[in-house]
């Protein structure tokens, strides 16, 4: 890989051992990719909050040592300097206010808080959400970024036209310190055109529809770039958040085009950018129902212990909709209803009275984490329900539970009756 003089100096240790370790990781990574060079970035989203599950593996619980191993893949511990690039913490292991609900004990809370303090002192913005684009980090078209979080990557590439690959903890850790990331993949214009053609032969309207379509598309195209034809209603942020998250879970979709909606293609032809058109994949009623059944594939029992809303983290609109659906009702004594939103939006939800309304109905508003990332559920949970194709893909596997998938209304119904009655639109 070709390095600039500045990058070479970092690699040679002229800017200290932490910069050297960071540049060493970027060079090893870039060479495996076959990247020709690095590119400057001033927009990095990573995940550097650690509890004992991680720190126990690092020889020392000391934050510099933990960051060195887990965030830089350094061969020996280094003293970590403040970050050089604008850097943001993604979703993490713990809700700093309602850690008690998670079943976190005080020692574990203190360990994670120490990690937050370390990140804050090094200049990493504590956004603590999987949806930075909701709360102040909205990259512009063409901006080179280095983001983790597959659902956020697919959103900013496709909807906003920013440029990032799906990065990992170690590459974003190194990018935070150096302001560099390999110039490869979706950083290059030529790699952003469509590779697959999806023709939608069914109305796609509700949030659930977008989740089902995304899950099917991801399975069909794997890490390809689909262009979608036949979308008749302009979707909103919530629908595209569900779509991208689902497509990045069943497959590895990091970018898609919806002509007239997403940032880089007004027509199907523009999405191909001169590349030969791909064979058409058709999505109709049969595909819809088969995919819905797959999403509910782990579920057998209809008594629901937990309803989870907010994967990816809920918008204020979704939080308000849960409040509206709960009006005059209460969460069933044998169920729980957890709603996850970015911490910045939770503050607004508190000011708007949504948090109070949720609490009065027996639901819990949380932030900073989710059951899959933090690996927590109410004690004895066997069956969960969610409006998120992504969460129902991951949570049953991670926590060994059954999972139902449906609309927000079906989920709130399940929370208030304790029973799953979702129909999958049949």
């Amino acid at each position, binding site marked *: 890989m070709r390095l600039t003089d500045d990058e070479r100096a970092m690699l040679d240790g002229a800017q200290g051992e932490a910069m050297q370790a960071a540049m060493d990781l970027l060079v090893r*990574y870039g060479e495996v990719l076959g990247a020709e060079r690095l590119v400057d970035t001033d927009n990095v989203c990573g995940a550097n909050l650690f509890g004992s599950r991680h720190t126990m593996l690092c020889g020392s619980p000391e934050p510099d040592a933990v960051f060195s191993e887990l965030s830089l893949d350094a061969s020996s511990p280094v003293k970590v300097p403040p970050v050089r690039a604008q850097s943001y913490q993604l979703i993490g292991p713990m809700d700093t206010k309602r850690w008690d609900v998670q079943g976190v004990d005080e020692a574990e809370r203190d360990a994670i808080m120490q990690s937050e303090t370390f990140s804050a002192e090094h200049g990493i913005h504590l956004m603590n959400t999987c949806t930075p684009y909701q709360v102040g980090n909205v990259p512009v078209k063409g901006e080179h970024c280095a983001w983790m979080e597959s659902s956020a990557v697919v959103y900013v590439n496709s909807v906003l036209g920013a440029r990032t690959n799906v990065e990992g903890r170690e590459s974003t850790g190194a990018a935070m310190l150096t302001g560099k990331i390999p110039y490869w993949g979706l950083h290059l214009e030529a790699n952003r055109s469509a590779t697959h053609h999806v023709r939608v032969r069914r109305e796609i309207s509700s949030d659930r529809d977008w989740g089902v379509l995304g899950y099917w598309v991801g399975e069909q195209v794997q890490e390809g770039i689909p262009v979608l034809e036949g979308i008749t209603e302009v979707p909103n942020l919530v629908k595209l958040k569900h779509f991208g998250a689902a497509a990045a879970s069943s497959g590895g979709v990091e970018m898609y085009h919806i002509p007239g909606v997403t940032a880089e293609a007004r027509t199907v032809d523009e999405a191909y950018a001169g590349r030969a058109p791909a064979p058409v994949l058709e999505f109709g009623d049969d595909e819809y129902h088969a995919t819905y059944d797959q999403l509910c594939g782990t579920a057998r029992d209809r008594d629901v212990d937990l309803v989870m809303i907010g994967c990816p983290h809920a918008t204020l609109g979704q939080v308000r909709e849960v409040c509206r659906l709960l009006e005059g009702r209460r969460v069933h004594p044998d169920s729980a209803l957890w709603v996850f939103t970015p911490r910045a939006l939770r503050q607004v939800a508190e000011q708007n009275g949504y948090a109070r309304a949720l609490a009065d109905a027996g639901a819990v508003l949380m932030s900073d984490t989710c059951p899959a990332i933090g690996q927590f559920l109410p004690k004895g949970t066997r069956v969960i329900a969610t409006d998120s194709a992504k969460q129902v893909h991951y949570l049953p*596997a991670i926590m060994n539970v059954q999972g139902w998938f449906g609309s927000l209304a079906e989920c709130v119904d399940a929370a208030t009756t304790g029973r799953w009655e979702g129909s999958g639109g049949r």
Partner: protein
Amino acid sequence: MTTTLQLTGRGLVGGVTEGEALVTRDAISGWGGVEPGQGRIIESRHELSGQSFADKVLVFPGAKGSSGWSGMFHMTRLRSTAPRAMIFNVMSTKIALGVVVTRVPAVTELDQDPLEVIDSGDWVRVDADRGLVVVDKTR
């Protein structure tokens, strides 16, 4: 009778090792698809669901899913449940960073499709310094 075949490709992370092959045609999810305590695949609908890749030569199409891919394989190294070597077809940032931090021999761009010519249970020697894979067929 044992037959031997040799594949040539691009070595990514150096080193020489050998072990029993574990082959899958399904892409692997790292975070949310792997349990690092035993190096087990846990994705419900994966063809290797429930099986461990610890100490095996893992042969697979590539990576999918969450950006926690490298972080999860990094954990398998720290918990001594990592694969002995990795052989795959499709390059991506997830798998590139994953093989770098797992620090085991890794090879891609082989001149024959490893998913076609290697079966689970075959004995495989990986020389990632030279990009060579030698397969002893057991059946």
